[in-house]
């Protein structure tokens, strides 16, 4: 199948590159030109700044959690404060970072460019989505400043409705609004991908980035409203004492769990699919090969989205659901492993006999593939009924979803940010420093979360601020790892900010990648293309790119 790649790697000489005089960044000036913009690229930048801000707030909570767990005694914070710390960490990271991370930044920036459109279908709704995000973030910060919330990010009833006197309502409203922000992003993507493709851009010529975002958008549109109604019912129960989830009034708390996880399981695919989107692009570009099994990878995204709606009960195995139903959901859960494995295998076959180079995005992508595989496989453990009873609500599950979300999604996010940084800003990041950051992140990550698998297997429960003496060694390792990880995340912020002014000028296509977004200037013009392109080749066609480049050279000569 995989014949030796015909493409000879020849990256362009960047010393001759110049910054274009006109681009989307300097098209207009002033704060208002950003706050009232309809340009998808500017909105992407607004999103990038906002989610980075919330990432570090959520990260600060994580740091405090790890600091508390350094010693077996609860000596840094009280147990109530600890409950608030992990709750705020979870809510901020899930709803304000992971869900919008890649779609709202990279997806927003790139999808119109990749399909040859001037903008998303609804620029105003796109901007509205950012304002909703900011409103949600502000409310969340308000709740935090007023004393926080300690329900856990899952808003579990009847704890959230009857027993807590913290800012559950404010937080629920914030999550409700953040949900609308996510719905509008997803809706915009779906309409754009269906309606705005340039001539010749058939479905099977689209980059896999777009396919995965399409699948994630379907999940956003169909899943999020169920979370919305669930939160409305929780709020009504808290305020008016009505009893849909209250057993003393005949309600069923498990109904809350069903409705909540009907969204929140697909939500993990909302978080991971855009990460997979990034990896497909990066792996292909730095192997200089078409993604192996393009069609299979494209459909595996859709399959993940579809299967994602049939497995939610695996979060509820120990909650007293029916055994028979649990069996069905357990088997369906195994099914999701198939499309995920298709992706991993196809990326590996893409690497095979490719002209691989190890630029920073590729390092992060390798990190993703390894860590996501571990995270995914431990997910199969947890999907098995017997194992789940032993492992759920322990640090095993904490390690599992951090491997997928942090090891997977965050690696993919950083990979994508580095990969498209030259396109977004027109400047290169410092290569050696960023490689260091990638390695530091990888080491720090493993040091943080590997011990947690063991802790969980040994039976340390999650969500407690104190633990028996014998778990201390592994917890110290984990806290040390978190410190390294923190450095790994701070480094990119510093050098990426530095590169805005001092980075080498990137040129149009520094990686010699094939996507339409790379065939225009960096940073792009306000409406992306001077002339709507015509897609006359397949996606990831490196021969086409080479011929195009040769063609250009003869013109100049």
């Amino acid at each position: 199948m995989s014949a030796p790649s015909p493409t000879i790697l020849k990256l362009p000489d960047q010393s001759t590159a110049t910054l274009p005089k006109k681009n989307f960044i300097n098209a207009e000036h002033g704060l208002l030109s950003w706050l009232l913009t309809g340009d998808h690229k500017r909105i992407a930048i607004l999103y990038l700044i906002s989610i980075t801000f919330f990432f570090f707030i959520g990260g600060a909570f994580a740091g405090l959690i790890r600091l508390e767990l350094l010693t077996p005694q609860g000596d840094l914070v009280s147990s109530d404060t600890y409950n608030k710390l992990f709750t705020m960490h979870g809510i901020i990271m899930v709803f304000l970072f992971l869900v919008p991370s890649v779609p709202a930044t990279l997806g927003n920036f790139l999808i119109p460019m990749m399909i040859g459109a001037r903008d998303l279908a609804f620029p105003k709704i796109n901007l509205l989505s950012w304002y909703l995000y900011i409103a949600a973030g502000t409310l969340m910060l308000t709740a935090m400043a007023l004393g926080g919330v300690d329900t856990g990010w899952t808003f579990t009833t009847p704890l959230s409705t009857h027993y807590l006197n913290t800012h559950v309502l404010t937080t629920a409203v914030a999550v409700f609004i953040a949900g609308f922000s996510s719905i509008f992003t997803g809706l915009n993507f779906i309409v754009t991908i269906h309606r705005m493709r340039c001539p010749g851009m058939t479905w099977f010529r689209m980059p896999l980035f777009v396919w995965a975002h399409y699948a994630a958008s379907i999940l956003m549109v169909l899943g999020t409203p169920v979370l919305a109604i669930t939160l409305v019912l929780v709020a009504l129960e808290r305020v008016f004492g009505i009893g849909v989830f209250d057993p003393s009034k005949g309600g069923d708390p498990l109904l809350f769990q069903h409705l909540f996880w009907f969204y929140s399981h697909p939500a993990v695919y909302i978080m991971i699919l855009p990460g997979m989107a990034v990896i497909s692009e990066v792996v292909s570009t730095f192997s200089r090969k078409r993604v192996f099994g393009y069609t299979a990878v494209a459909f595996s995204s859709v399959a993940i989205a579809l299967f994602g709606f049939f497995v939610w009960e695996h979060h509820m195995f120990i909650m007293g659901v029916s055994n028979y139903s649990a069996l069905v959901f357990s088997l369906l859960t195994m099914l999701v492993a198939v499309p995920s494995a298709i992706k991993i295998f196809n990326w590996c076959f893409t690497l095979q006999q490719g002209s691989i180079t190890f630029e920073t995005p590729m390092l992060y992508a390798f990190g993703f593939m390894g860590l996501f595989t571990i995270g995914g496989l431990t997910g199969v453990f947890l999907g098995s009924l017997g194992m789940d009873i032993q492992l759920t609500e322990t640090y095993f599950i904490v390690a599992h979803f951090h491997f997928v979300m942090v090891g997977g999604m965050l690696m993919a996010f950083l990979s994508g940010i580095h990969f498209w940084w030259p396109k977004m800003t027109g400047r290169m990041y410092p290569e050696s420093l960023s490689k260091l950051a990638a390695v530091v992140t990888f080491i720090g990550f493993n040091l943080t979360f590997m011990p947690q698998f063991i802790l969980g297997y040994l039976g340390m429960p999650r969500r407690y601020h104190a633990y028996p003496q014998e778990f201390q060694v592994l917890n110290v390792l984990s806290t040390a790892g978190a410190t390294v990880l923190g450095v790994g995340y701070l480094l990119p912020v510093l050098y990426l900010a530095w590169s805005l002014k001092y980075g080498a000028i990137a040129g149009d296509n520094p990686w010699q990648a094939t996507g339409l977004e790379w065939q225009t200037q960096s940073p792009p013009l306000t409406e992306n293309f001077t002339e709507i392109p015509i897609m006359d080749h397949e996606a990831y066609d490196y021969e086409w790119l080479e011929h195009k480049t040769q063609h250009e050279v003869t013109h100049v000569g």
Partner: protein
Amino acid sequence: MTQPEQHFHDPSNITNPEHASHHIVTPAQYALVFASLLAGTALTVVAANIDLGVFNPIIALGIASTKMVIVILFFMHVKYQSHLIKATVAAGFFMFLVLITMTLSDYISRAWGLW
């Protein structure tokens, strides 16, 4: 730049399933739909007053579903829309059914007890 949409006659919506030529429903058609919806309302009230045992809810929901289909097809113009819109509507009801049936799989079998 020529634009990509193809404007030749494509009644079965095969060559470009995302596009349908625009169709205006006439007031006479709307009046017919309106009359059938009112008739359906009268019918469901009458049916509710007759004791039909287990069929009472089935008939009531059947009539409601029929009315819904009429509204979707004509008031909301889905009959004249592209395959894309039709598939979108179908996807909504499919997911609604998934929510209901998969959740019910727990509630129905919970009382069956242990293995």
